[in-house]
Each structure stands twice: as structure tokens, then as C-alpha cells.
């Protein structure tokens, strides 16, 4: 581990890259924006649409983060902070979506389309009638 902490390094590079770099990134972002707009028009299945849109958005995001926010030439600590926060966003997504996907189909909201289980949906695919004959609760 470095004996001196990174704040003491004398040789912190002062980047003097030209302003042109930003215009290149800007143009790339615009291309990607219209790209995602176009891809949305293509006739594809809904999950494919979702995946494509997220992929393009992720590309745009990495461009912004690396160049506009200077994470490319930032110290290790800043990069670590960004990557750790993305990791924990992933953890949150993963566990919650796994849970909602594998839930007992009737525990999802009443009239939601339930994910079809590999073993097929049980008898009440969309919630049995209301045997108590009472109006649905709430507003």
C-alpha cells in the first residue's frame, strides 16, 4: 500500500487536452440519442426494446462520466467511489427483481400480469374471486 497517501503526490498531472475533445464527445452523444430514438421505432419484442434502450443509455452514460466528469484521469479513490455506488445499485436491482419474479403469483398486485413460472401458473392465475364479497379495499 502506498506509504504516502495520494494527496501528497507531487506529480499530479494537469491535463491540458484541447477543448476539441468535448465537441467529439458531444457529437457522439447526439448520435447515440438519435440512435436510441431510431431503435425504439424498430419492430422488436418488448424485452429487446428495453435491453437496447438500456444499452445505449449506458454507453451515453459512460461517455459523460469518463470525459465530461473527468473520471478518466481522476485519482483511484474517485473511480472507486463511482464503481462501488454502481455495484450497490446493481445489488439493489438484482435482489428486488429476483424476488418479484419468483413470488407466489397471487402475491403480486391483484390485476397484474404474473410472470409465467417454468412449472406453469397455479390454478388461480389471476387471483380468485373475492369470496368475502367485499369491495376492493382502499380508495
Amino acid at each position, binding site marked *: 500500500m502506498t506509504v504516502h497517501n495520494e494527496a501528497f503526490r507531487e506529480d499530479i498531472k494537469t491535463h491540458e487536452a484541447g477543448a476539441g475533445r468535448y465537441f467529439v464527445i458531444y457529437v457522439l452523444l447526439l448520435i447515440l440519442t438519435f440512435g436510441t430514438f431510431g431503435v425504439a421505432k424498430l419492430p422488436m419484442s418488448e424485452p429487446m426494446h428495453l435491453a437496447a434502450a438500456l444499452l445505449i443509455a449506458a454507453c451515453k452514460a459512460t461517455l459523460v462520466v469518463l470525459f465530461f466528469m473527468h473520471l478518466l484521469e481522476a485519482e483511484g479513490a474517485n473511480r472507486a467511489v463511482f464503481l462501488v455506488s454502481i455495484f450497490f445499485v446493481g445489488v439493489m436491482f438484482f435482489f428486488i427483481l429476483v424476488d418479484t419474479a419468483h413470488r*407466489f403469483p397471487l402475491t403480486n*398486485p391483484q*390485476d397484474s400480469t404474473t410472470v409465467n413460472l417454468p412449472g406453469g401458473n397455479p*390454478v388461480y392465475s389471476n387471483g380468485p*374471486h*373475492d369470496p368475502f364479497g367485499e369491495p376492493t379495499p*382502499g380508495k
Partner: protein
Amino acid sequence: MGYRDYVTIETPPADSMDIYVMGKQWMWKFAYPQGPNSVGVLHVPVNRPVRLLITSRDVIHSFYVPAFRMKQDAVPNRYTQISFTATETGRFQVLCAEYCGTNHSKMWAEVDVMTEDAFDTWIKDQQRGLAHRQDMGGAPGEVAPVADMATEGQKVAAEKGCLRCHTVDKAPMLAGAPSEQHIGPTWVDLYQRKTKLSSGETILADEAYLTESMMDPTVKVVQGYQPVMPSYQGNLTGPEAAAIVEYIKSLRSDRVQTTPLQGPTYEPITNR
């Protein structure tokens, strides 16, 4: 008891008896498919697997029976399930375990495990609607002494004129013979049948489809039929619609229990 055993215990056996449990701000209500409702006391036959489909009317409650070491939250607007098999008769305390307001600590109920025949006599008493034998825990008037929901459904279907278009007996219908066909599809074996719609897509005829077709029939018309059915929106109340669906479910040519539950395929080791 590790996770694998937990899953085998937690998966309700195929032939379990369904009972609906409704948590309501500070009381528990129970409804049996055979018709009777009861408040505050859950009657269960001994040595029979029972599956509780638990829901709540307002906030989250939790159906907790310390004696069975069993607990499951009651979440509004959806059903959670838990299954158990009572091995000895007796009355066991039910408590509400999820905080639900002022009288959360008084939201108690009882599981009354009865012998097989005591349970059957109790069911028959309830069905005959004998008021004084009716289980009257809770506010009076809460529980309407209703007969078997299916017979109720038959009465409502006759009154509302459903049977003018839908047949309820196994009429000898030749496929594609328009004159022979009634105006609407037959109700026999309709429940859980894969029906082909006029739009070409095939759907599973379950409660949602049945209730939806009552309310706005022209949305999903069965292939080979004209969309002439009038909408019963506002004409049928909730319980009446529910009763009709229950009646349709009871019209089975082979009178077999509803199709077994396709939970994850684990073979239980040996039942407790």
C-alpha cells in the same frame, strides 16, 4: 430444518383444502369454498392438509399461530399462502404479529381443530343457514348466512337470464353446427379450458376472464360466436358475479378437484 426442508414444508400439498383468511382492522374473518363464512374462529379438520389464502382489507396484518409455529403476513389487495396439517384436535390461539393500529394487540382469533365428522356437521349446519348455530363471533350482520355459493350462483344466473344463451348440461353439440349451438358458449367444463378467441389468440378461461366477460363481453369473444352478449356492468354486484363464477366452476363433467397446483416439483420426504 434447512432451506430444502423449508421449501417442501412450505409448498402446499396438491390435495389441500383452501380456506380464505381476511385480516380486517382488528379481526380475522374466514371463508370456506363450501360457502360458510365465520369470524374469529377457523374450523379445520384434523389430519387434513389445509392451505390458507390470506389477504387483508386495509393494512398489513400477520396471521400468527404460535402453537403451529406458523406465521404469514396478510397484505391488502393480494393473497399470500401458507399451508399446515393439524395433527391433534383442540383450540389454538391466533395472534396478529404485524403492527396494524390501535387494537393490534387485541386482534386475536382461534383455530378450532375438529375431528373429520365434527367438521362436516359444522359445515352442513352453516350451509343450512341455521342462524343460531351460525358462528356469530364479531359484529352481528357481518356474516350473511349464505347457502353454498354454487347454488347461489345458479339462482342468480337463472334470474339474470344467462341460461337463455349459455347451456349448463352436456348438450350433444356438433362442432360447427350453428343451429344446434346456443347463442353463447356452454359453461360445462368451461373453467380452466384453453379457449380460442375470435381474435385468434387462445387464453385460459379463469376467474379474471369469466368476470371480465360478464362486465364487458365484446372484448374477448370465443371463436365462432357473435358478440351479442349485453354487458352486465352495474347489473351484477360483486358477490353475485363471484357466485356465478363459482357456479361455472362447479359445472364439471368429471366432478374432479380443480387441477393440482404446479408449484416447484419437490417430492415431500415423508409428511410430518
